[in-house]
C-alpha cells in the first residue's frame, strides 16, 4: 500500500495510530493524582514532540544515512521560523504561505551552505556547518535585528501591514480558519484529555513527512546515501558521484528543519534567535544519536525524550516532592526530598546529562536498541538470532568514524 511493503505499511499504521492517540496516551494519570505531574498531554508539549520529531527525522536523513554530521542545522530551523513570522506580518495569520516560504528559503539556504560545506568531509564538514550557523545566529542577534528583532524575537505588531487579513480573520495563527491554539477538553472519569487543533495540524504534517522519509529510506536514493556512508571509494569506482547525493540529502534535511522551524512559529507566533544557536544544533544531534541514528523511529524517540525532560522535570519543585512523599514519616520524607532534590527542578539538566551517559553506555544503538531488547524479551525470541526489530536492517554498525 502507498508503495510500501507490507511490513512498512503496518509500521506506518502503528505510527499513525500512536500519533493520533497521543493526547490520550500521554495523559496516563488522572488529574489531581500525585503522578499527574508526569502527564505530558498538554498542547504545547505535544506540539513540540511532533515538531522536534520532524526536525530529527530530517536530520537523520543526512546524518543517519550518509554519516555527514552537521552541526549547523539550527540555522535552517531559525530561517523557517523567521519566514513564517514575516508572512504573518506581511500577509496575515494563515500559516500556509509562511510554511511554504519556510521550506523554500530553508532549502535555498541549505543549498548554499551545503554546496560549500560538502567540499570537505568528516569533522571539517562539521565545523564548516557550525561556522555558518553560528554566524547566522550572531548576526540575527545583533546586526540583523531589523530583520529578526534580535533578542526579543520576531513578532507581529498591530501596525504590521497584514494585507490579507479580513475583518473576520482569526487574530492568531490558523489554517484556513482552523485556529491553532483552540482545543477541546474532554473529561473522562478523573482524566482530562486535550485535543488541540495545532497539535493535530503538526501531527498530520509529521505523519506525512515521516511517510516521505520512510519512502526515502526504502528508495534507490536511500541506498545510495547509505552506500556513501559505508564506502565512498567503491561509490566513485562504481561510476557514481557522491557529491550531488550528499547535497540532495543536505537540502532535504534542511527543508525538514525549515518546516519544523516554520511549525514552531505556526504554533506560537514568535521566532527567537536562540533557535539558531549551536546549542539548538547540538540538541538535534543529541536527539538523533540518543534515539538511534539511522533508524526510522529512533530520532523521534530521542526528540520526545529530551523535550519531556526539559519540560516536565524542570517543573518539579521541592513542594511537589513533599506532597509526593507526604505519607512518609517526617525525617524520612525530608531525607528523600534532600536526595532527590538535586535531580529535579533546576537540576533537570543534570538528570538529562546522566541519562545521556547511561543510554550511550548501556544501549549502544540508542533508545531504539532498548526498545528492540524489550521487544525480544517480550516475544521471547533468542538474542543470538539477531532478530530484526522494525528497524534492524537500517541499524548502523558501530563504525569507527564520525561520518
Amino acid at each position, binding site marked *: 500500500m502507498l508503495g510500501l511493503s507490507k511490513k512498512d505499511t503496518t509500521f506506518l499504521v502503528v505510527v499513525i495510530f500512536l500519533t493520533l492517540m497521543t493526547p490520550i496516551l500521554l495523559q496516563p494519570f488522572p488529574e489531581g493524582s500525585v503522578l499527574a505531574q508526569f502527564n505530558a498531554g498538554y498542547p504545547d508539549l505535544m506540539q513540540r514532540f511532533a515538531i522536534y520529531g520532524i526536525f530529527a527525522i530530517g536530520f537523520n536523513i543526512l*546524518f543517519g544515512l550518509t*554519516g555527514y*554530521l552537521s552541526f549547523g542545522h539550527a540555522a535552517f530551523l531559525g530561517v523557517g521560523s523567521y519566514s513564517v513570522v514575516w508572512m504573518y506580518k506581511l500577509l496575515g495569520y494563515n500559516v500556509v504561505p509562511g510554511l511554504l516560504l519556510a521550506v523554500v528559503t530553508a532549502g535555498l539556504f541549505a543549498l548554499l551552505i551545503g554546496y*560549500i560545506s560538502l*567540499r*570537505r*568531509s*568528516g*569533522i*571539517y564538514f562539521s*565545523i*564548516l556547518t*557550525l*561556522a*555558518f550557523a*553560528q*554566524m547566522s545566529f*550572531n*548576526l540575527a*542577534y*545583533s*546586526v540583523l535585528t531589523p530583520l529578526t528583532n534580535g533578542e526579543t524575537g520576531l513578532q507581529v505588531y498591530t501596525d504590521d501591514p497584514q494585507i490579507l487579513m479580513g475583518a473576520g480573520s482569526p487574530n492568531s495563527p490558523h489554517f484556513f480558519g482552523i485556529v491553532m491554539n483552540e482545543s477541546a477538553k474532554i473529561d473522562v472519569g478523573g482524566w482530562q484529555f486535550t485535543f488541540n487543533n495545532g497539535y493535530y495540524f503538526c501531527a498530520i504534517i509529521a505523519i506525512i513527512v515521516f511517510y516521505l522519509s520512510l519512502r526515502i529510506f526504502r528508495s534507490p536514493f536511500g541506498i545510495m546515501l547509505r552506500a556513501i556512508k559505508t564506502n565512498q571509494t567503491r561509490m566513485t569506482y562504481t561510476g557514481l558521484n557522491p557529491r550531488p547525493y550528499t547535497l540532495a540529502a543536505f537540502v532535504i534535511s534542511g527543508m525538514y528543519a525549515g518546516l519544523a522551524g516554520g511549525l514552531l512559529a505556526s504554533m506560537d507566533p514568535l521566532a527567537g534567535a536562540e533557535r539558531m544557536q*549551536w*546549542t539548538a544544533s*547540538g540538541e538535534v*544531534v*543529541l536527539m538523533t*544519536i*540518543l534515539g538511534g*541514528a539511522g533508524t526510522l523511529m529512533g530520532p523521534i524517540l530521542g526528540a520526545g525524550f529530551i523535550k519531556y525532560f526539559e519540560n516536565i522535570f524542570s517543573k518539579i519543585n521541592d513542594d511537589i516532592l513533599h506532597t509526593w512523599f507526604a505519607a512518609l514519616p517526617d525525617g524520612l520524607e525530608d531525607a528523600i526530598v534532600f536526595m532527590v532534590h*538535586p535531580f529535579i527542578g533546576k*537540576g533537570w*539538566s*543534570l538528570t*538529562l*546529562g*546522566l*541519562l*545521556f*551517559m547511561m*543510554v*550511550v*553506555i548501556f544501549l*549502544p544503538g540508542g533508545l531504539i536498541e532498548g526498545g528492540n531488547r524489550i521487544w525480544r524479551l517480550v516475544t521471547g525470541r533468542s538474542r543470538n538470532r539477531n532478530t530484526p526489530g522494525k528497524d534492524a536492517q537500517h541499524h*548502523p554498525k*558501530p*563504525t*569507527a*568514524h*564520525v*561520518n
Partner: protein
Amino acid sequence: MDALILQFLNGLDKGSAYALIALGLTLIFGTLGVVNFAHGAMFMIGAFCAVAMQSMLNISKVTLDPTKLDFLGNPAQIRTPMVESLFGPELGGSIINWSVPLSILLAIPVMLALGFIMERGLIKHFYKRPHADQILVTFGLAIVLQEIIKYFYGANPIPTPAPDAFRGSIDFGVLIGYAQNTIIYPAWRLVYFTFSAVIIAAVFAFLQFTTFGMVVRAGMADRETVGLLGINIDKRFTIMFGIAAAVAGMAGAMYAPINSPNYHMGMDFLVLSFVVVVVGGMGSLPGAVLAGFLLGVVESFASMNEVKSLIPGIDQIIIYLIAIIILLTRPRGLMGRKGVMEE
C-alpha cells in the same frame, strides 16, 4: 600604531587561552582518537580549582562581635581566616592574596586524577565506538560536571582576583620605547601569556625530548605498529589524557582573574576550541597552537572600532569567517594530517 600593538597583545592573550585548550583537545584527538566534548568542562573545573583554593585559604574561625550588628540585628559574625591565625595576619594575608597562582598546585593533581578517572572509567570503553557515541557520552559528562559545580558554587561568577602585585596595569609602551601612557596593559594578562608560553613549550619539549614523548608521538602517527612493538601504548595514552586535562585545568585556573569563573564557562569555550583545533588541522599540535594565536589576533583586530565601522558586526563572526576561508583553501586546516577524522 600603538593601537595595533595593543590589539596584538590582546590577540596574543586571547590566543594563548585558545591555544592551551586546543592543545589538550588535540592531544586527546591525536593520541586516543576521541572527540572529547567534556574538554571545555576541564577548563571550567580548572578555573574552579582557583575558586576552591581561595575558599580553602579563607576557611575562617567565626567569633561573634556583640558590638556590631548584622542586617537582621543579631550580633555580627567576625571571620578570621585560619591561615591568618596560623601564620599571622601579614604572611597569612599574602598567602590568601596569592591564592590564584597557588591554585596551580591544586589544579595539577586534581586534573590529572580527573583525567585518569575519566579515561579509565569511561573514555576507554569508547575507543572502538563511533564518534557520535563519543560525542554523546562526553557531552553528557560535560553537563554532569557543570551541574555538579553549579550545585556547590551556584551560577553566579565568583571573583578570583590576581595577587595585588599583578592587579593593576603596567606601562608596556615605555618598555618598547613609546611615550608614557600610550600602551597600558594589565599585568596579569602579561603573566598569563608568559605562563601559557611556558606550558606550551613544556608540552612540546616533553613530547620531543623524552622517550615517553617519542613513543606517544609514534603512537599518534601509527598506533598499531607501536602496539606491535610490545610497547604498552594504552597506559601512556591514559597518562596523556591526564596531561591534556591538566593543561586545560591550568589554563582555566590562571584565567580565573580575567574571567570570573562560572559553571557554564566551559560550554562558552567548547565550540571555540573545536574551531581552533580544526582550523589548526586535526592531529597537529603545532597547528592547534598556531591556529589559537592566529584566531586570537584576528579576533582582536576585528574588534577595533575602525574595522567595526567598516563592516558592522564583523567582530561577531570573524572567527567563523576565518575558519571557513581556511578550511576551503586548505582542506585539512593549517597543518592537518591526511585521514584523521576525515571519513
